[in-house]
């Protein structure tokens, strides 16, 4: 709760510290000081900052975020319109991360220094080093334009079409994130492979495959889930960039558009929603971690 309160305060103040006048955006060419004053009055921007903030808080507490300056629609409606695409994008990214990093991480750990280990290291280091929007453009060039396998940006209509349109943006997000996950999964797998209970299991004559599935994976996933949770802030930031490159109608592109047009109510609401999302996922990560790691039980010190 205090986190969320802090986020609202910071985003509110930052917005107003940045120069730029919503009235100028609304009037464009037709700016006259008189017309601008009228608009500021009607938007309540002539009120003292404190009372503006108080009004926003009161509204947010009752689930109403006011009306967008730019779209002349309730902000709540815009959020509802946009949340689906972002959630789907994050979900697909998580799925890609799992599909990429679990097999590769374990393989790299089991065959240390092998071809796969080296190749993943080089590939993912590159993926991590390049900025998200550049990775996005490269993916578009290769898979969208040259091979024609995936649509270039947009969102399509219907669930399957949405998924198809999100393949490239999700890959763009998953590649750098998988870097971190593969490395941490490799490290935790190696630790576990060298631990006593694995040695004992081997002495018992349990097959290598069984050991990996039963003991290693279960114990290695915990730390990886934590790493994923920690990297979530990065993922949210990445989503904002990637949604703009690929024109995905999600919260990220809504946010960027709203910042540049100084659409205060929209920026504040999206910032709050993203913050809530991060907090909830972090909580969820802790719970999952607890469930996956048998050494963590409530009330017992490690």
């Amino acid at each position, binding site marked *: 709760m205090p986190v969320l309160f802090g986020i609202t305060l910071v985003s509110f103040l*930052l917005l107003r510290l*940045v*120069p*730029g*006048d919503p009235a*100028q*955006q*609304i*009037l*464009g*060419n*037709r*700016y*006259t*000081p*008189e*017309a601008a004053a009228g608009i500021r009055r*009607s938007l309540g921007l002539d009120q003292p900052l404190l009372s503006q903030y108080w009004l926003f808080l009161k509204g947010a507490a009752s689930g109403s975020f006011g009306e967008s300056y*730019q*779209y*002349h*629609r309730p902000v709540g*409606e*815009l959020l509802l*319109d946009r949340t689906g695409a972002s959630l789907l994008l994050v979900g697909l990214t998580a799925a890609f991360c799992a599909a990429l990093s679990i097999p590769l991480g374990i393989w790299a750990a089991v065959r240390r220094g092998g071809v796969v280990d080296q190749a993943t290291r080089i590939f993912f280091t590159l993926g991590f080093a390049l*900025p998200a*929007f*550049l990775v996005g*453009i*490269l993916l*578009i*060039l290769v898979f*969208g*334009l*040259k091979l*024609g396998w995936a*649509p*270039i*940006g*947009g*969102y399509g209509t219907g669930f399957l079409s949405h998924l198809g349109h999100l393949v490239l943006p999700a890959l763009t997000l998953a590649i750098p994130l998988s870097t971190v996950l593969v490395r941490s999964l490799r490290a935790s797998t190696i630790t576990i492979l060298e631990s006593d209970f694995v040695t004992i299991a081997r002495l018992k004559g349990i097959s290598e495959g069984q050991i990996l599935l039963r003991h290693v994976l279960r114990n290695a996933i915990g730390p990886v889930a934590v790493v994923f949770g920690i990297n979530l802030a990065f993922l949210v930031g990445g989503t904002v960039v990637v949604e*703009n*490159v*690929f*024109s995905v*109608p999600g919260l990220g*592109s*809504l946010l*960027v*558009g709203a*910042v*540049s*047009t*100084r659409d205060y109510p929209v920026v504040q609401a999206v910032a709050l929603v993203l913050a809530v999302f991060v907090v909830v996922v972090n909580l969820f990560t802790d719970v999952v971690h607890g469930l996956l790691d048998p050494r963590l039980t409530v009330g017992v010190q490690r």
Partner: protein
Amino acid sequence: MKSSTSSSMRRTRRVRSTATLGGLLTLAVTLSACGGGAEQTSDDAPAASSAVDTLKLANAVAVDTLDPIQASANESIWMDQNLYARLVQTDPSGKEIVPDLADKWDISEDKLTYTFHLRDGVKFADGTPVTAQDAKWSIERARDGEDSAWGFLITPVTDITATDDRTLTITLSKPHAPLLADLAMYAYAVLPQKAVEADKDFFNKTPYGAGPFKVTSLSPQSSVVLTRNDNYWGPKPKLKTVEISIVTDDNTRLLQLQGGEVDVIENPAGNVLKQIEANPRLRVDLFDSTRVDFVSLPLKTKPLDNVKVRQAIKAALDLGRMNTLAYQGNAKVATTFFPYQMLFWDQSAVEPKQDLAGAKQLLAEAGYPDGFTIPLIAVSADAAGQAQAVVIKDDLAKIGITVDIQSFELSTAYDKQRPGTNGMGMRYWTNDIIDPDEVATFGADGDGGANAFNSYWKDEAVSALVNEARSETDETKRAALYAQIQTAIADQVPFVPLAYAPFRYASGTWVKGFKVSPLGNYNDSLLTLTVEEH
């Protein structure tokens, strides 16, 4: 589209890194274009010519609202033109008023009464008849509505009466030459009064009027789908559907066009036009516009209050070179502050020539033989404006003036420019109506509310000319008045008009007949254009 909330301290570094990345991306796009990307049809196949009935257009900017009295983004305004008919409209050349819902109108001897006669049997898209009462209500809403930015245009209108279902009478307090041009503007669209009043969300769902298309799906900032309105009074469009998507990233838009996912894109980046031309399946479309780029010289920044200093700055600029660098030669050098595609543009005005000796002479006379230092505020994301700023810096250095270019994101840049005390500023203007009254009021009338394009220059004689030209209905006299106004701005230089920039589009060769009028709308071309299989 980039948004920046970072401090100005990191500005220069950020801009430079963006430029490098921008260069990389351009290279990537270039490579793919040179590779003749998107060759999905085999070379030996005969050119397909069967028509498809859908046009897919990718815009760079979101549609903010479809309520015509509130629209501010050009992309929304152009959308309005497809949806809502007005009493009269501008023809495709952008220079003449032609019938729309009203097929004839009478103007009284004293020019104070206009009587409009609606066509027989015109209907809104939902099939209900368009009445004079709808027109009265819509025009009053645009004039008096709290949300309307456009009431000021028709202040001389004293009374609007629907004498019967098909006759509308408009009475004026004094002659008002721009009236027809004002009524042809999107804000004065005729809307279905009952439907709009019955649903406060009318414009957020699937708004319609009596134009050639209606909205069938609307998600702001993402996509708008238009469908042919079969009740339209005029020629039926060949297209059944127009899908407009919003793709803010320049590179993504171009890639979508190369991949054949869209048919037309708005605003391809200026530096990739040559590569687009090199691709046999694509075409660059440049259209005459009413855009005028200018640099404002606000009198509140010393020594710009000295007219000789302003004249010196103008004389030092090489506008031809600026054009080559900023627009790859695709723009025209501005001769006056009026758009050249507009009524009463002064055709006798000549291109200003660079005269460094004369410029130095003027500076010396003004008391600045060694020049001075002055900031220039530019918009970081505007490539053309950045190039223009660099040429200004380079040219003014030749007469001893040191220019400090300060780039900001759009909103911030305009904030810095507004008080007029922070130095020169890069700006541009585009018209909403074909009549010059609007640009004259905003640019040359110091009392006109916009402080003469924010320059804080005021000349009572010129303000009087602007007011006189508004009420003068004799075209020859009016042209003479506007010529005087254009000359006054050229002599006194509250700002320097730099270029007449074209509207830039790129399209697939499979699109036949996409055209944009000087006011930016393409509704006329949507009536006739065809899209072939590709």
